[in-house]
């Protein structure tokens, strides 16, 4: 028997998000952008994004904004993920499967060290 989540559950989730948000702002804002054009989706971008969202949820990573973009003209390098930390320049990654996506979150977004093997020089 599955239960549909209620609005009460949402209120609890909202309160938790507010508490955690107040607790951690020090690292600045982080934005993760996933390429979701036809080329990206065909190359597996949905699994890449799923890995990113699952990691954020399971590891309780606060303050990360996940958005999407269309085709940026690098179809052969899809799935593509871009990371912007604070006011640092945007880093673009290519061939990002689920495992690479998790590594980018852990090494770059959390610990500040880009995953050199997958960086695309723009």
């Amino acid at each position, binding site marked *: 028997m*599955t239960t549909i989540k209620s609005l009460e559950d949402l209120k609890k989730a909202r309160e938790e998000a507010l508490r*955690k948000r107040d607790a951690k702002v020090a690292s600045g804002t982080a934005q993760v952008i996933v390429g979701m054009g036809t080329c990206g989706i065909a190359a597996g971008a949905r699994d890449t994004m799923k890995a990113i969202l699952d990691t954020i949820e399971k590891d*309780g990573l606060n303050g990360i904004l996940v958005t999407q973009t*269309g085709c940026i003209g690098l179809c052969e390098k899809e799935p593509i993920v871009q990371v912007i930390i604070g006011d640092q320049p945007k880093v673009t990654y290519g061939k990002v499967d689920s495992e690479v996506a998790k590594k980018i979150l852990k090494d770059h977004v959390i610990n500040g060290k880009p995953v050199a093997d997958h960086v695309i020089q723009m």
Partner: protein
Amino acid sequence: MRELSLHLLDIAENSVAANASQVRISIIENTRTDLLQMSVEDNGKGMDAAMVASVIDPFVTSRTTRKVGLGIPLLKEAAEACNGFLKITSQVDIGTKLFVQFQRSHIDRMPLGNLADTFLQLLIANPAIHWLFYYQVDDKIFDFDDAPIKTELAGISLTEPSILNYLRQTIETGIQAITAVDIG
């Protein structure tokens, strides 16, 4: 693409690119009429008749980074291979509706695949858009409107872990509850 839910993700990206502020995705499976129908309807910038007529041609796209758009032709071909069709109705400044139909039991009909992932990712990655998701299997209905949730959240990011967890569970359990047993 090997799942209809991946095609839906792709088609919905067209609505995002057309600057829609509201997108409605509907999937209806009817085991009695043996039809699977899907639609993506937006209030984006729309297309004129010439553009609609040519958009299913692989050599037309509104994109500027690359000259060829393949998403719609691929889905059209998949539908026609399953005794179905694809139809686009659009009006400039009003919006676009894409409708596609398959013979549900056709041997070549792709599985829907992970509809929950498609819905969740569109919702999370495009927070400024009002999303409406509708999935019906015979008499069972999953009807999702993100407006009450966003009102309650009052600006808190959808990517906060507790909110993500809530949204994922709401969508996954909602879809599981009505999914037909014999899919695939």
